[in-house]
């Protein structure tokens, strides 16, 4: 490998180097001083002489006063290195001082005196300050002259491309800055607009409005969360008071004592034994039920069983889905579902017909009892009585037959078991399908050498859904974080002409904007509380392709300069 470095650092060369850096430092410092003076005059006065003519004269004066030394130094490596580093330092300043704050907020943060000084140096908006732009102007001059001086041939092609491309990028950037805009159109489904609220410069403050030459209509908006990915989680609770106090559950089902922190999350791998770090506690997932439910069976002993705790198992179909429900005749509050909205009245179960039903059968219904529609299941009679709008009717109650609720077609129930004593009803946990509708995990937890304890975990912050391990600061949970995050936002947009005719329609998602007549439309905002709202980012950047061209040329130039076939072997950059 060739060593390309010239290590000649004689005193003569060092003097030359020092003079070179001093000269360039002086030129750049003078530029900063002149630019600061000019911009402060421009912003500080309303008089046309002071805010326009004087700043222009100052800029002109710099150009005239320093023309010769600039001409002599601008293509030197001293100028190149120092201007690059000055831009770097200026950019860094813009990250250490908050930018484009409102004056009051800026003063609050840095104090009155501090903010005045920072504002004088334009550190409150570095990236639009004249001195910062001045660095770019001078660097562009340096690049141009360096390239101009270099012979245009195959060997130097990489050099020219690499050094002219930043000028191309800057030109495109400035065209966009002066002739383009970025803004937002805020729409609700069905609305159309052609007025864009324009962002102010590079900040996101919304400034003026501008019109585009056609209208945009939001036809539809939707957003979707990621699919859930349930995992067994180990949480640790930092106990703050008594270390062995039994924690109580908070609203999310997590222990309320101390602050819980998640320490591990494991995929649902059945039978894999896991240990909680630093403890002798082990656990494993015994079974995962994507749609947990109980499968009920009743032994064939009905005839010999005394009706101590009679009940009925129904599969109830509601607008929200199906669920198995047990109603118990002798348990107050557990024999009735009173949901007039969805069931059209009350659903009741009695082992033997109650008195007010007998009265109704005899044509003398109790006035209060008759106020609502009722569906009454009577176990000994194996009958259903319907009390609907003052009329009583009945039909036999049969297993596995679907019955509609009064005035609710398609919403009803199927009787699965009618039993005289709930003690003989056997329930087995099962999953009703593979769809993640009611996920539950059955885990087994034990200490080394100790007996195992089974627990059911269920997500959604439901009370009792977690399992607190006795005598430890840990609890287990079944949760999915993934479905809390948005997968995509999508707006269906139409472009309307002056006659409100649809010119084009397109679906817009993040990273896939719609382009029409030089305007780009982006999916840029949404409101979780308003599913009809969509914020459509709008940009008009006439210099964009110039910038992209500059990007391509820059990469190509660097590639040719460093590794090109015809580059100067071993030469300096």
């Amino acid at each position, binding site marked *: 490998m060739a060593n390309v470095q010239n290590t000649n650092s004689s005193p003569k060369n060092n003097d030359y180097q020092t003079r070179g850096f001093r000269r360039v430092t002086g030129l750049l410092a003078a530029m900063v001083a002149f630019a600061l003076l000019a911009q402060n005059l421009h912003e500080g006065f309303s008089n046309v002489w002071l805010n326009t003519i004087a700043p222009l004269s100052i800029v002109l004066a710099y150009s005239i006063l320093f023309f010769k030394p600039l001409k002599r130094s601008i293509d030197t490596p001293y100028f190149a290195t120092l201007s690059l580093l000055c831009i770097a330092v200026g950019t860094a300043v813009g990250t250490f001082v908050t*930018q484009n704050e409102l004056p009051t907020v800026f003063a609050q943060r840095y104090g009155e005196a501090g903010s005045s000084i920072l504002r004088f140096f334009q550190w409150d908006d570095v990236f639009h300050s004249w001195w910062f732009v001045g660095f770019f102007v001078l660097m562009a001059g340096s690049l141009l002259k360096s390239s101009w001086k270099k012979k245009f041939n195959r060997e130097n092609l990489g050099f020219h491309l690499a050094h002219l491309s930043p000028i191309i990028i800057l030109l495109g950037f400035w065209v966009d800055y002066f002739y383009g805009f970025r803004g937002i159109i805020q729409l609700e489904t069905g609305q159309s607009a052609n007025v864009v609220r324009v962002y102010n410069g590079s900040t996101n403050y919304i400034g003026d409005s501008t019109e585009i030459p056609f209208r945009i209509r939001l036809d539809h908006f939707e957003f979707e969360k990621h699919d859930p990915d349930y995992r067994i989680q180990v949480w640790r609770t930092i106990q703050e008071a008594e270390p062995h106090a039994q924690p109580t559950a908070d609203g999310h089902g997590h222990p309320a004592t101390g602050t819980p922190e998640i320490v591990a999350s494991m995929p649902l791998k059945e039978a894999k034994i896991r240990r909680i770090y630093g403890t002798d506690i082990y656990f494993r997932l015994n079974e995962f039920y994507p749609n947990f439910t109980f499968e009920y069976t009743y032994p064939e002993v009905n005839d010999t069983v005394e009706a101590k705790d009679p009940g009925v198992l129904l599969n109830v179909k509601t607008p929200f889905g199906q669920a198995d429900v047990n109603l118990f005749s002798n348990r107050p509050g557990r024999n009735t579902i009173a949901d007039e909205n969805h069931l059209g009245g009350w659903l009741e179960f009695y082992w033997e017909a109650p008195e007010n039903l007998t009265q109704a059968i005899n044509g003398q219904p109790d006035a209060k009892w008759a106020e609502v529609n009722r569906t009454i299941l009577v176990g000994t009679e194996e009958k259903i009585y319907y009390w609907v709008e003052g009329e009583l009717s009945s039909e036999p109650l049969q297993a596995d037959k679907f019955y509609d609720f009064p005035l609710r077609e398609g919403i009803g129930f199927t009787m699965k078991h009618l039993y005289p004593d709930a003690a003989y009803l056997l329930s087995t946990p099962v999953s009703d399908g593979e769809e993640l509708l009611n996920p539950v995990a059955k885990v087994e937890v034990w200490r080394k050498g100790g007996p195992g304890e089974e627990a059911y975990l269920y997500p959604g912050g439901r009370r009792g859904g977690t399992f607190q391990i006795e005598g430890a600061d840990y609890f287990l949970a079944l949760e999915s974080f993934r479905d809390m995050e948005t997968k995509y936002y999508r707006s269906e947009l139409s472009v309307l002409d002056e006659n409100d005719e649809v010119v084009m329609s397109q679906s817009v998602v993040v990273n896939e904007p719609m382009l029409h007549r030089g305007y780009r439309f982006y999916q840029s905002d949404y409101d979780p509380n308003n599913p009809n709202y969509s914020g459509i980012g709008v940009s008009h950047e006439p210099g964009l392709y110039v910038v992209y061209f500059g990007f391509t040329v820059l990469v190509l130039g660097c590639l040719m300069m*460093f590794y090109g076939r015809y580059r100067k072997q071993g030469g300096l950059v």
Partner: protein
Amino acid sequence: MLESLYYTSTLFKVTFFLYALALAGYIIGVFRKEKFWGNIPFALFTIAFLACTVLIVDRWIEAGRPPFKSFYESLVFAAWTTSLISLVVEYRFKVRLIGFMSAIGVVLIFLFALTKRDVEIIALPPALQTWMFIPHVISYFLAYGALFVAGFTAILYLALPGGVTSHHTLGQQSRIDFSAATYQITKFGFLFLTAGLLLGAWWGQNAWSNYWGWDPKENWALITWLIFAAYLHFRNIPSWSEKRLAWVVIIGVAAIVFTYLGMDYLPTAGDSLHVYSGD
């Protein structure tokens, strides 16, 4: 940290162990001149790199997306690119000291990744669901890997300005100039740094209608680029010493580290669109 190590995947543990083993080999290799002690750590480092590749692929499959989203994932990828560049450079220049420095760096990156372990695998937000995510990140991390290695060779230059004799090719020994090596590696890194920066700008235009938003992370990416551009120009000043050149590279690497890790310390970071998940 031990708790984090306990809960990490077996692949992570194996990879970490192999990198640590390679580092131990390099430590011995630094003091031994036999060819064997040059080849063993290099072989171990190669095996560790392959294990790291499997770790990344496994994560990619498990997450169902490129594994570059969280801090933890990006650190593992940074270790991978640093290893890759280091192996290529060590193979080319036959200097085990480069591998030694890189092995230290990679082991430190892995230790740091442990403190940023992901408890949960994060899904990609809409802005990252684009093919541009992959070339942008790969360009940047190849650049970071190369420039880290360039930083190591710059440090080696400062420590051993006379260079060292190559060890691995017995019978064909030659003297290695670390300054020249630094320049070669920096050129490669700078090329990918440029590509990564411009791909990021292009992506920003597609995602946020803005190819340059003066976002703190973008600004520091630009600062890093400017420092390395200045390094390439400093080389054109005949009397600018190689020692100073080495320092410019080290400052550039420090800027990379700040760009990567330091954004939280900036008062302007609150509005940044470039934030890693996981902390």
